[in-house]
């Protein structure tokens, strides 16, 4: 994934800032609660939600099981339709392929449809290093890009920004990227949207190269699908002469019939809409209509590693709806940036360590960034058991050892011995109870607990001893 996140501190460290930022906490709380309530209503409208969820899960599992076969079928179909397929093992290779394709057109500018895959590989930065300017055209991505910022939510990348901040960013930065913001721009949403529309319109009409991702790829026909709300995507997908789509290999589905399920579950889970306003589908190239040159870059970047893990692979079912972020109490307090990845929240906590490995401080801490409350699993439209994968990844991190884990393992082993010897446990409880009046209110080593909470008061007698006195 993007080099931007290398050397990130661990999750608890990174979360500190957000936890103590009252404005950010309020912004996040308001936004996530609004979306989650709307989602609940949109989902409740469908009597067959449970069946749709199960169907989505099975389609994805089946496809992942035979991924090699469906990818080859997709490649054949795309090629027959006039497109070209490129395979990229990692971010560097994908970036090299895209930069090469753009350079071959002689262009120095590209317009982009919001895409998690290109964020993941840091494509914009890679293109910039090659002297190519990539313009984000999704409103929230535009805000993030102009603000020289990082996205903090999958669906609403600028969720952490308020209207006033957006006005300031537009006023200060639009001019250096193209058409400047109008004088006297207010923080009224309609005015802000209009400023963005005018700024972007210029880019759409000038662009010769468009870059997108895809929500789905249909193997039987080689069709790519993008769901979006603003219409900027359709401009980027139809106006340029060359279209380059960078898509994770897990996004393939076998047939058009399978789309029927996701056309219902994705919009309702993400934007709480019955249907997303724009669904664009394209198959190869067509004479005198749309891009005359189409390239599909199929991205691995850690996905086959995740696929090899029998428990973890379910993360690849993810359709990036972000429902799990919006219900996650940890995300709500820690904010998206603390996850050190373009994939924040519960799904990020299981996806990033699988795609990048668990060697770095941030990746080793992500599986613990959850109270395992299970709200994410409950809302997931493809039934990814996120708590199960978190615990599974914790095992890997604990096995790896490293910071804190050796000590923890020793403590767990010591406790394990006591817990396997009830007489020792009873003796320990008795000793603790007898000396309870001597215990300080803040125990050494219990700092993480007592910083914000009182310790429970030790009782005069354990239950075990009460039982012995009263019932035997």
């Amino acid at each position, binding site marked *: 994934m993007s080099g931007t996140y290398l050397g990130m501190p661990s999750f608890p460290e990174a979360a500190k800032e957000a936890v103590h930022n009252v404005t950010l906490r309020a912004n996040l709380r308001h936004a996530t609660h609004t979306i989650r309530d709307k989602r609940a209503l949109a989902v409740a409208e469908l009597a067959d939600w449970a069946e749709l969820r199960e169907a989505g899960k099975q389609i994805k599992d089946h496809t992942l099981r035979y991924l090699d076969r469906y990818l080859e079928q997709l490649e054949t179909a795309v090629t027959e339709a006039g497109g070209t397929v490129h395979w990229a093992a990692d971010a560097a290779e994908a970036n090299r392929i895209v930069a090469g394709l753009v350079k071959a057109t002689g262009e120095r500018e590209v317009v982009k449809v919001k895409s998690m895959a290109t964020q993941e590989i840091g494509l914009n930065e890679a293109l910039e290093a090659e002297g190519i300017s990539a313009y984000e055209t999704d409103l929230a991505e535009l805000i993030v890009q102009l603000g020289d910022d990082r996205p903090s939510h999958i669906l609403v990348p600028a969720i952490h920004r308020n209207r006033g901040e957006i006005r300031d960013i537009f006023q200060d930065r639009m001019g250096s990227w193209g058409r400047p913001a109008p004088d006297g721009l207010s923080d009224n949403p309609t005015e802000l949207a209009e400023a963005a529309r005018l700024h972007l319109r210029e880019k759409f009409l000038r662009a010769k190269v468009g870059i997108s991702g895809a929500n789905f790829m249909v193997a039987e026909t080689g069709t790519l699908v993008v769901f979006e709300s603003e219409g900027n995507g359709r401009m980027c997908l139809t106006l340029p002469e060359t279209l380059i789509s960078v898509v994770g290999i897990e996004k393939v589905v076998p047939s058009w019939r399978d789309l029927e399920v996701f056309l219902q579950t994705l919009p309702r889970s993400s934007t709480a809409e019955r249907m997303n306003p724009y669904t664009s589908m394209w198959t190869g190239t067509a004479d005198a209509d749309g891009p005359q040159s189409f390239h599909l870059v199929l991205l691995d970047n850690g996905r086959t590693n995740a696929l090899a893990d029998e428990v973890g692979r379910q993360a690849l079912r993810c359709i990036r709806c972000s429902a799990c972020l919006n219900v996650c109490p940890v995300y709500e307090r820690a904010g998206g940036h603390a996850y050190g990845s373009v994939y924040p929240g519960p799904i990020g906590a299981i996806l990033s360590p699988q795609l990048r490995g668990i060697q770095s401080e941030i990746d080793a801490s992500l599986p613990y960034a959850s109270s395992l*409350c299970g709200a994410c699993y409950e809302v997931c439209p493809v039934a990814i058991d996120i708590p199960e994968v978190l615990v599974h990844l914790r095992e890997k991190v604990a096995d790896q050892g490293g910071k804190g884990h050796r000590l923890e393992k020793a403590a767990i082993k010591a406790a*394990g011995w006591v817990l*396997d010897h009830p007489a020792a446990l009873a003796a320990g409880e008795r000793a603790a109870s007898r000396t309870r009046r001597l215990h300080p209110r803040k125990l050494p080593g219990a700092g*993480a607990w007592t910083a914000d909470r009182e310790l429970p008061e030790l009782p005069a007698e354990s239950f*075990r001893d009460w039982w012995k006195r009263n019932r035997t």
Partner: protein
Amino acid sequence: MRVALFVTCVNDAFYPATGIATVRLLERLGVEVDFPAAQTCCGQPQFNTGYRRETEPLIRRTTRAFEGYEYVVTPSGSCAAMVRDHYPKFGETSLPSRTYELTEFLVDVLGVTDVGAYFPHTVTYHPSCHGLRMLHLGERPRKLLDAVKGLELRELPGAEECCGFGGTFAVKNAEVSAAMGRDKVRNAVSTGADVLCGADNSCLMHIGGILRREAVPMKGVPLRALHIADILASTEEEPYV
């Protein structure tokens, strides 16, 4: 009927009153209670923290301790969920089907919702994630509370949100955990109830710990955290003190 009480390690060491209340309650309802002394911990903290190998002996011990009992009852939603949802992954399939969380046992097995309790307080109920989303306790605890004489039940805003305990999460991500706990406490205080009740003393230990720390800034708030067993065991003859 004879049942084995799985009191759980947290209740044994920190909340014996909840275990005693569970015994009193079950005995009052005509159930014979055994306490197999070989029991210790279900292994949940070890399992959830990623120590699968260290969990195994505890699973074997717990399973052995309760061999031969048709019903194993525990006043802890999360320990019941550990046994029920995770023991099968270790090949233990008999104990899970015989293990019941207390409110589940009362409503589903004994078929009672009015346990003859008396508790003259305003109460708000925090469902706890494992009881809510793994055991699907649903309306059971509320039905039991509704039937308690003198008790006024108040709706807890954001009831389904996690309190932030999460086992070792409470220390590994202490700041986020405490922020979640403070919001839970704020919501509970807003109900004006005297008692925040739950079916998991581990969550209540966290919530109660924050409550007592925040008691200074929230001066005059009479709220305290209490296990549902303590409420259901309370009668006019022997009220909870």
